């Protein structure tokens, strides 16, 4: 059996890697090759340390937990193409001066081009909270009327 600390590290890395989507506790232990007993102890430990968040979830008729990281890996992806990132005019850029985020032409161009990027993979919690509705679902039809 792997040492508790090793398992904690591995589990934490795995949960962090899942990002906003989180991972089912049951899936995690299968992935790490641990027993569910050991697994649930480790996840409680990680929650106590404030490293993850556990949310109860009903999965195939059984209650389990979905584990979310409290701290996500720092990524510069969101702002990598933003002209404000490391802008040479940063020191002089202020809403009250001529160089301002209100009128910056580079920022305007960037905003206009925002929607033209390739659609990003869903990563927000809303993406997993909205399952596809079957077309022949009578409830779905009644919602539209």
């Amino acid at each position, binding site marked *: 059996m792997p040492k508790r600390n090793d398992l904690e590290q591995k589990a934490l890395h795995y949960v962090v890697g899942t990002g906003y989507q989180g991972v089912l506790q049951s899936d995690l232990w299968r992935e790490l090759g641990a027993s569910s007993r050991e697994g649930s102890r480790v996840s409680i430990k990680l929650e106590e340390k404030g490293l993850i968040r556990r949310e109860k979830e009903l999965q195939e008729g059984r209650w389990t937990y979905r584990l979310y990281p409290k701290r996500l890996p720092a990524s510069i992806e969101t702002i990598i193409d933003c002209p404000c990132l490391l802008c040479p005019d940063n020191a002089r850029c202020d*809403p009250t001066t001529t160089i301002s985020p209100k009128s910056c032409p580079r920022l305007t161009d960037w905003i206009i081009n925002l929607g033209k990027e390739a659609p990003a993979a869903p990563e927000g919690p809303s993406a997993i909270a909205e399952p596809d509705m079957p077309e022949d679902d009578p409830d779905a039809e009644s919602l539209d009327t």
Partner: protein
Amino acid sequence: MLSTIDDATLNKVAVALGEQDAVTLIAHLKGVEEITDDEIANKTAIRLNSVRKILYKLYDHSLVSLRRTRDPKTGWFIFHWRLQPDQLEGFILSQKRRVLEKLNVRLDYEKNHDFYYCGSQECKRVPFEEAVELVFHCSGCGKPLVHFANEIMIERLSEKVEILRKELGE
């Protein structure tokens, strides 16, 4: 300790900080404990002044640290540089906070103003107040100014702001 930064992120920051040279330079810094600018220039074939320029840029953001010694023969200073990857997360977060602040200013401005535009790429949009002063004629090309719908811009900007807020835990 949990490391939340990978090499890919480090490279992206290097690209954002400068050019391809910065990526090469960081790749060399990663492999050694400490290195002088002279050694980097010799190993990477990047010009010494470019090496120093990039290093100072990285130093400004605390991504590298330096130690100074004196050359016993010439009496000149020798700078020994060391990569500080643990500072990278702080750097990214501070940049995100700064960008978010700017985007919020812009979002408020877009929401609270009506814009007028002549349609020429060389000219810029003007807010209603300025358009009135210009009697609805572009100051650049003289064409008539027509209302510019910025709803899509507001929508895209709001989405970006929301994503950044989420990432910063606000």
